[in-house]
């Protein structure tokens, strides 16, 4: 037991000290911060220049005094021709709106500078409202009454649970579970491949025989898997805390525009804890499940280029689930295929994460988790039997038949 700890320690420390690890750990929150900065910058960059809009109305007064002034847009209705108004424009940011007599013709907006899309959109939608109102008035409909009838509808999604109605913002929950699924998918590959590369390194270095004359191959394999797994967990913890720290600092400076993030975090509420626990469970068991297989593959080959033939069947189910997760699992989370994908250990770490926000029945979650635990014990057992023989086989290209033979070797 003590020796496993030594191995875990070495695997962990040598990896955490690597430049690549430090760079990755800092780069991801930095990217996150940069993204965040850009978003809040964009949010803050609302058009703050003063626009004076001269409305030249050829319809005969339908639009006169109807446009609503805002802080940065002031409408005026001069009695002159469009050309004269154009000539008298003082500022570059001022505009002339030329409304034709027949509204079927295009209204035109003139300015010395290119007009921003948001500004012309705003004017267009307001013109439509005014024109509709004018038409209704002409048809004898009282627009004041109409406005009273028309209500402003917002949909608020609430789940009915045994404890009562639990209002949640589904978007936040989906986003979190989706991010979790992607993170599991990617890290199974990234860290699984690290385990595999570590095994190949020991084999090609020929240090393996020295090590296995001191410890059991199983201890070495588990030490490596756990060591790499802890590296992965360390990275997540650092990413999350660094990102949270950065967003807190950035958020503190520009608090009013960051209410989106705050409401996001707030809306997650109790669900976040549940999802985080599921994420950790599926990440750890998924990692143990797959990295044992990766270790077995590493033991069977002499170099990384030879791993292809064995990698394919391991990665295929994951890739399949990943591709399905966006297009299928998310839209029909309760179909039989979705349910089975989230129960079978090969695909369940990704598939179940996708289904988590849809209140998965307890028995499905329980079955999936139990199978996951049985699954990783099973793959670890198989992998260890292949590994103990494979690591001592040099220069022999292994086939599947060979692997089966290795599995049945006595010690």
């Amino acid at each position, binding site marked *: 037991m003590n*020796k496993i700890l*030594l*191995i875990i320690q*070495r695997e962990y420390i*040598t990896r955490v000290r690597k430049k690549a690890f430090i760079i990755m750990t800092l780069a991801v929150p930095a990217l996150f911060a940069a993204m965040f900065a850009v978003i809040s910058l964009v949010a803050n960059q609302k058009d703050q220049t003063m626009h004076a809009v001269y409305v030249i109305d050829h319809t005969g007064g339908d639009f006169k005094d109807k446009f609503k002034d805002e802080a940065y847009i002031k409408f005026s209705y001069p009695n002159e021709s469009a050309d004269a108004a154009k000539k008298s424009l003082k500022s570059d940011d001022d505009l002339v709106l030329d409304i034709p007599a027949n509204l079927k013709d295009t209204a035109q907006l003139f300015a010395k500078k290119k007009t921003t899309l948001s500004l012309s959109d705003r004017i267009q939608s307001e013109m439509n409202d005014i024109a509709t109102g004018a038409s209704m008035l002409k048809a004898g409909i009282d627009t004041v009454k109409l406005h009273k009838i028309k209500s402003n509808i917002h949909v608020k999604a609430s789940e009915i649970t045994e404890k009562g109605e639990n209002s949640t913002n589904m978007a936040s929950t989906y986003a979190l579970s989706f991010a979790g699924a992607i993170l599991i998918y990617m890290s199974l590959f990234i860290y699984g491949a690290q385990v595999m590369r570590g095994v190949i*390194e*020991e084999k090609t*270095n*020929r*240090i393996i*025989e*020295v*090590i*296995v*004359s*001191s*410890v059991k191959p199983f201890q070495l394999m588990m030490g490596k898997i756990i060591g790499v797994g802890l590296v992965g967990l360390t990275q997540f913890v650092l990413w999350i805390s660094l990102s949270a720290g950065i967003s807190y600092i950035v958020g503190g400076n520009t608090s009013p525009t960051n209410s989106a993030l705050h409401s996001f975090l707030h809306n997650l509420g109790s669900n976040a804890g549940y999802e985080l626990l599921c994420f950790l469970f599926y990440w750890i068991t998924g990692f143990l499940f797959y990295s044992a297989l990766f270790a077995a593959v590493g033991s069977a080959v002499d170099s990384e280029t030879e791993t292809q033939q064995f990698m394919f069947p391991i990665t295929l189910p994951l890739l399949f689930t990943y591709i399905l997760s966006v297009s299928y699992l998310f839209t029909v989370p309760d179909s039989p295929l979705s349910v089975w994908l989230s129960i079978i250990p090969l695909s369940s770490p990704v598939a179940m994460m996708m289904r988590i926000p849809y209140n998965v029945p307890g028995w499905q979650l329980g079955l999936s988790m139990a199978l996951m635990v049985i699954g990783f014990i099973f793959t670890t057992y198989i992998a260890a039997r292949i590994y103990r023989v494979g690591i*001592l086989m*040099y220069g022999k290209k292994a086939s599947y038949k060979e692997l089966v*033979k290795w599995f049945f*070797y*006595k*010690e």
Partner: protein
Amino acid sequence: MLSIRNIVKQYAGHTALSDVSLEVESGQIFGLLGPNGAGKTSLIRIITQITAPDSGEIFFNGQKLDQSHIERMGYLPEERGLYKKMEIGEQMIYLARLKGLSRDEATKRLKVWFAKLGMETWWKMKIEELSKGMQQKAQFVATVLHEPDLIILDEPFSGFDPVNAEIIKNEILELNRKGTTILFSTHQMESVEELCDAIVLINKSKKILDGPIKDIKNTYRNDVYLVEYEGTQLSINGAAPFEVVEETAGDDNLQTVKVKLKAGSTSNDVLQYFIPKTRVNMLQEVIPSMNEIFIDKVSKIA
């Protein structure tokens, strides 16, 4: 010290060891000989508990071999290597700790060894920065750092230049003088004759010869002598107490003849035959070298 009894090891399709037994006495330098693929490495891997035998038993200092004995052994495999990216000092300490040494103790001993072999400046270096010979030296230190009772060396001198091979050989001899038992497998017959007290010869999974070198050589003495004399070549007839095996004319009026004693005669009879006729420069018993015994034994069985 090490008692190996009736070891059988089979891999799918072929037998690596069939019923091999041998005894290694405490304090011996024991040679494990055999052609490639004879089963030497399989036997070593069983002793070091990397693999287990199908049947048979091994006793280490009178106790049945178990996990606790691993820390009493040091193993330098033929296929050797170290972590390329890890600093030497740290790596040696790690390997010693896997053998049950504490960090402090490993550091202390390592400093002694590094000073002894002129490796002090290597501590912070990475393996990939060292030459092959330097790596071998480091690996040797890693093998003996935990002061094992039994050191197992698989082809220890391959990859060493003559200077370093000599240094390592002397270190092995010194450890042996201090009481360490050494088991080493090799193809180099000169080093066997020079170092070993006893050997075992394995061929095609079977033990074909074992015992102290002296005894083995004695059993291979077959009354052949080499005689060197001056003057012209003598014609030797049937009355001589020996038969001529081979005659060669040397330079400067020197003649050499290889003779085999007839039954009942001794080397003195040979001298008495030559002395009246010529002046004898040398009479020497021809004892087969381990190399000859090795080739003889192996080719007879093949």
